[in-house]
């Protein structure tokens, strides 16, 4: 899951995939501002066909957090 999220984020932020780690965050990635955060949320919703709740979006502090939220959401949708 992390790899899929990382590829989506790298495309959006226009940075090489290998520069993004699970610790990457808006504080460490120049292009990751408020707009790009929302765009990332929208891109994930479209890619995985779910709708994220505000409390889930709030948990997305780092790319690792994003992947964990998406993983949990995908599992919840499946079950």
């Amino acid at each position, binding site marked *: 899951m992390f790899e899929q999220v990382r590829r989506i984020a790298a495309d959006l932020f226009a940075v090489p995939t290998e520069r993004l780690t699970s610790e990457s965050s808006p504080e460490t990635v120049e292009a990751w501002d408020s707009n790009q955060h929302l765009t990332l949320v929208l891109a994930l919703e479209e890619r995985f066909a779910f709708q994220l709740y*505000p409390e889930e979006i709030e948990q*997305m502090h780092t790319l690792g957090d994003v992947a964990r939220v998406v993983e949990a959401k995908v599992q919840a949708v499946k079950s």
Partner: protein
Amino acid sequence: MPIVIEPYREEHEPAVQEFNRRLQAAGDPDLVFYKSSRPKWLPQIEASPVYNEYLVAVDSGVVRGAYALKHEQVFIPGKGSISVACYHHPLSEGIVDRSYASIGGLMVRDALTRQPLLYSLGMGGYDRPLPKMLKALGWSLVQLPFVFKIVHPNRFLRDMHALRTSPLRRSLMDAGAATGLGWLAVRAAQSALRARAPRSGPVTSDRVAEFAGWADALWLQAREQYRMSALRDSETLRRLYPRTDDHFTRLRVRRRATDVGWAVVGERRKDAKYGSMRVGSIVDSWASPENALDVAQAATRELETQSVDLIVSNQSHTAWGHALERCGFFNGPSNFIFAASKKYAETLQPFAENSGGFHITRADGDGLPRNF
């Protein structure tokens, strides 16, 4: 504790002041949310569909974001009166601390759950953060025209700081003012525009203290002729332009004793880009499109009488744009954007094609307190 977005109450006021202090530390004095939880402009009162509502994003007692909704009604032919809201004044801690980058998106989404028919207006241009975010959310955006009339060309050439951006430009504008050539050029261009205006019958305009029943008749007569217009009955107009607000001049425009429309004009607050010029604005206006010229002429005359140096206006409808052009107005670069949420845009389809038929003025959105 998760971030909770809730109505702004008196108990939040100290936390909002702290929030403002953190934002202002970033160096922009405009980054301030309302100190008072009760709106000074358009507070909620019984029986009025037009009111402001403030909301705050609270994280363990600390305010991390805030925004406002101006609730109102619009009329759309074939659909009738519907409730919408203007999303305005969004401020997020993400501006100064990127670890709060999610707040901006959370607030727009929260607003959409409260009122799916949302719009935003103004915003300063497509390159600003808010329009970019709204575009990402699938909102429909259109740039609305900005027009201006130079009343005193020499003052304009010497004080229009927004155009005096290089030494060459400043020299040319100073030379135009000193030699009188600038004055001649402006007057010649305005005469050419005015020559295209048809001669209308005897039109009179009277200053009125407040709007009354005659404005209701005008609202009902003309509303079907616009693809969309915000409610402008007399009750709403009295809320927007109360008798006690002497900053605005309310004009009742008649042709041969028959009401044809109205306008609200006023002098804008000082703005660095206009230097020391006195800038008047045609804030709001209403008439059937075929009577727009009569009202535009009356509003322009009134501001010229008040001796402003420059008159500005934003009018979305093509008939109003043409009417102002015939009064000697030029089109200027616009950063005035109308953005409609997906649900709202669905009611306005085809959006791009219809946008020239919307009735949107400087008075829509949150423009009144910001500019006057």
